[in-house]
């Protein structure tokens, strides 16, 4: 850095710190981010460890709830069975007359009162599992409600097999060789197709293997027209009837043992009925990553940063004023007379506003995530755990979002020169798309806005992954953004870079 630029930075920093309103504004932005995050706005019922979710082999929080009939398999071996039928029960149709008149059923509707049907990811098939402990590793080949044959393992991995209807019988085979498991399927029991071969590192010599069934929550988003997307639904169950079961290899003697893993102890009518060569299993739950949000459980650290938009508005106003106030008061000429190299003026202002915002936002976000999480948990809200790396990305990403937005606002100030026009443009362009997307806009329009506008960088705050094999309301208001974090950041960077380029060109070309 040249001495000249150092002097300019010093001057711009002196300018910034000697306007009390701007310092108050920065403090207010920090207070907004922290305030929204730590004020108790949610409460839940997780006051003990009862709702602590199991974690899968890679540490992901998982849903591990299903019914199965199993035997022990030591060493290599295989199991083949025909899934003769896959049926299920859905919750009562919310459109049906309900004497209680309580609106769409959410919680405890008993599937037994429901209507026949399968949710898309109802599952029945064969499974090889490291044990019965919650979150144990596994591999399974299955027929689903509408997603055809799948091979899944260790909760988060999903491989599609042939399309297959749940209405027709389906042959399935699972073969263990060392720590690999191969899933195959057949329509007729003679022509077989391999679905996938997966590795389960550390799979013990003796595993529990057999047939399983489970069926996730029925989820339906409601009132999407006005954007206030909610979820209706309830528990479901699926029943798989297996026959022509052939077990080869080191299987334990005896019959298939009915068992239920996970889920509430009083969950009704789940069970495995073993009748000679025929095994019928009814299950409810899922073998999948646990997700947060409307159709999932609890929330994430993203929720604590809900005040970001308020801090963003304040920061955008300050950053814009940092330059438009100079134009308004005629000070820009003084600035340019003191520093005739105009590109450097823009650079110095960018560094000052960007650094002030980044440091403030970093401290605020770190405080908010740490304290906000404790507040949520103290209120009984389940907060999904995230890796340290993700937490750092969310916090630093929030700081980057605010800092880049402030620089974008600064550049808009240079381009437009008038405070009112520049502040309006900056708020409409940067904050408004986010606010619309999380409030009144239909989900698709909102997601489109969060792909192309500077607000795309809110994706940096997403702390959990979206899984196609788990149905959920993956919307911004639930902490899910349409772009990956780095793509969202790139969109904001592109806008900021473009605005800076235009600002620099205009600054050089225009008379002061």
């Amino acid at each position, binding site marked *: 850095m040249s001495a000249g630029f150092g*002097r300019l930075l010093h001057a711009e920093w002196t300018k910034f710190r000697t306007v009390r309103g701007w310092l108050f504004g920065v403090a207010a932005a920090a207070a907004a981010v922290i305030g929204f995050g730590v004020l108790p706005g949610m409460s839940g019922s997780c006051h003990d460890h009862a709702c602590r979710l199991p974690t899968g082999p890679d540490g992901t929080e998982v849903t591990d709830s299903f019914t199965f009939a199993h035997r022990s398999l030591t060493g290599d071996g295989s199991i083949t069975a025909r899934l003769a039928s896959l049926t299920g029960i859905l919750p009562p149709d919310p459109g049906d007359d309900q004497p209680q008149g309580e609106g769409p059923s959410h919680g405890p509707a008993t599937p037994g009162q429901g209507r026949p049907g399968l949710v898309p990811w109802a599952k029945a098939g064969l499974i090889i599992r490291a044990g019965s402990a919650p979150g144990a590793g596994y591999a399974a080949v299955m027929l689903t409600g509408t997603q055809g044959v799948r091979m899944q393992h260790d909760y988060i991995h999903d491989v599609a097999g042939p399309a297959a209807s749940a209405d027709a019988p389906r042959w399935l085979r699972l073969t263990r060789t060392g720590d690999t498991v191969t899933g195959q399927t057949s329509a007729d029991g003679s022509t077989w197709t391999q679905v996938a071969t997966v590795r389960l590192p550390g799979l013990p010599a003796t595993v529990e293997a057999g047939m399983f069934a489970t069926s996730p929550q029925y989820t339906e988003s409601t009132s999407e027209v006005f954007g206030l997307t909610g979820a209706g639904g309830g528990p479901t169950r699926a029943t798989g009837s297996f026959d022509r079961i052939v077990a080869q290899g080191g299987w334990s003697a005896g019959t298939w043992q009915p068992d239920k893993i996970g889920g509430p102890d009083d969950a009704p009518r789940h069970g495995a009925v073993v009748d000679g060569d025929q095994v019928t299993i009814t299950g409810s739950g899922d073998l999948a990553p646990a997700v947060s949000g409307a159709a999932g459980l609890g929330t994430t650290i993203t929720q604590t940063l809900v005040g970001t938009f308020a801090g963003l508005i304040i920061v955008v106003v300050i950053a814009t004023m940092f330059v438009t106030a100079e134009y308004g008061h005629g000070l820009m*000429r003084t600035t340019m007379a*003191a520093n005739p190299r105009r590109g450097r003026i823009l650079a110095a202002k960018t560094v000052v506003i960007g650094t002030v915002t980044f440091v403030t936002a970093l401290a605020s976000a770190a405080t908010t995530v740490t304290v906000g999480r404790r507040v949520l948990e103290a209120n009984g809200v389940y907060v999904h755990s995230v890796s340290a790396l993700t937490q750092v990305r969310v916090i630093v990403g929030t700081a980057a979002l605010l800092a880049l937005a402030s620089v974008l606002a600064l550049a808009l100030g240079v381009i437009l020169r008038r405070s009112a026009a520049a502040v309006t443009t900056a708020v409409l362009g940067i904050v408004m798309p986010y606010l619309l997307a999380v409030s009144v806009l239909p989900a698709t329009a909102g997601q489109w806005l969060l792909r192309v506008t500077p607000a795309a960088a809110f994706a940096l705050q997403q702390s959990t992954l979206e899984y196609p094999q788990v149905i959920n309301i993956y919307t911004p208001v639930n902490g899910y953004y349409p772009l990956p974090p780095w793509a969202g950041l790139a969109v904001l960077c592109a806008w900021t870079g473009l605005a800076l380029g235009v600002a620099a060109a205009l600054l050089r070309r225009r008379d002061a």
Partner: protein
Amino acid sequence: MIVVNGLRKRFGPKTALDGMSFTVAAGQVTGFIGPNGAGKSTTMRVILDLDAADEGTALIDGRRYRSLHRPLTHVGSLLDASALQPSRTARNHLLWLAHSQGLGAGRVDEVLQRVGLSAAARQRAGGFSLGMRQRLGIAAALLGDPRALMLDEPFNGMDPEGIIWMRGFLRALAGEGRAVLVSSHLMSELQDTADHVVVAGRGRVIADATVAELRAAVSDGRVVVRTPSADAGVALIAAGASVIAADGDTLTVVGLAAQDVTAVLAGKGVPFSEVSAHRPSLEEAYVELTRDVVEYRAGDAPEGVR
């Protein structure tokens, strides 16, 4: 030394500068005078590289402004005394400017003292009167202890005491060897201050001279004679003068210097009570010079009153 050479600039259809050329020499106050719209402020902005001229050059000690390192140590300028962030204190306003030139707070306090603003240093500039703002602007121009100063209408908004102070201050700055360019649209403000006057009109220089030369240029050698005698006219005509006006006991003659008129009348024994050379004031000279270039005059219907 500031050398302006052949500046031309148009703002849309309006010609702001039309071949403006002059020199501001060190050690004297150069008055830059002209009616509103004459191009004075535009010229100053071009010198500071704030506005780009379409043609011509403006050099400070032979260099363009934008090539100066720490430019405020070469040229100090006051373009608009109201150009202040109202919520910033006077001292902080100077402080950021000082930092931009690598100067410290000590220099800020020095210039505040020099313009008599020490007591108001920590007051918000937004509360300053225009006169105080002018002083603050002068302080800003002096921050870098520059060899050249350029002040646009520094007398604006000053009370009589302030105007007297400003005149003395400008003389003192020139006395320190600095080149001082001061613009005004009122010649009277500069009457006893400027050594040299550049009169501008419609974007070009219409007179560039010392104050004495300027006066002489508009003086046409008229001599006014006040006499009760009717013989005065005859005597003067006989001596070679022409009487161009007679009004009661007052004659206006040309063709003879005042002392010659006195000698002729005394020689012929014609009584007279006064013989005086007509000496136009600087103001009259200025009005005379700018008669044709004033953009808006009383009685006209200007499209925009400035």
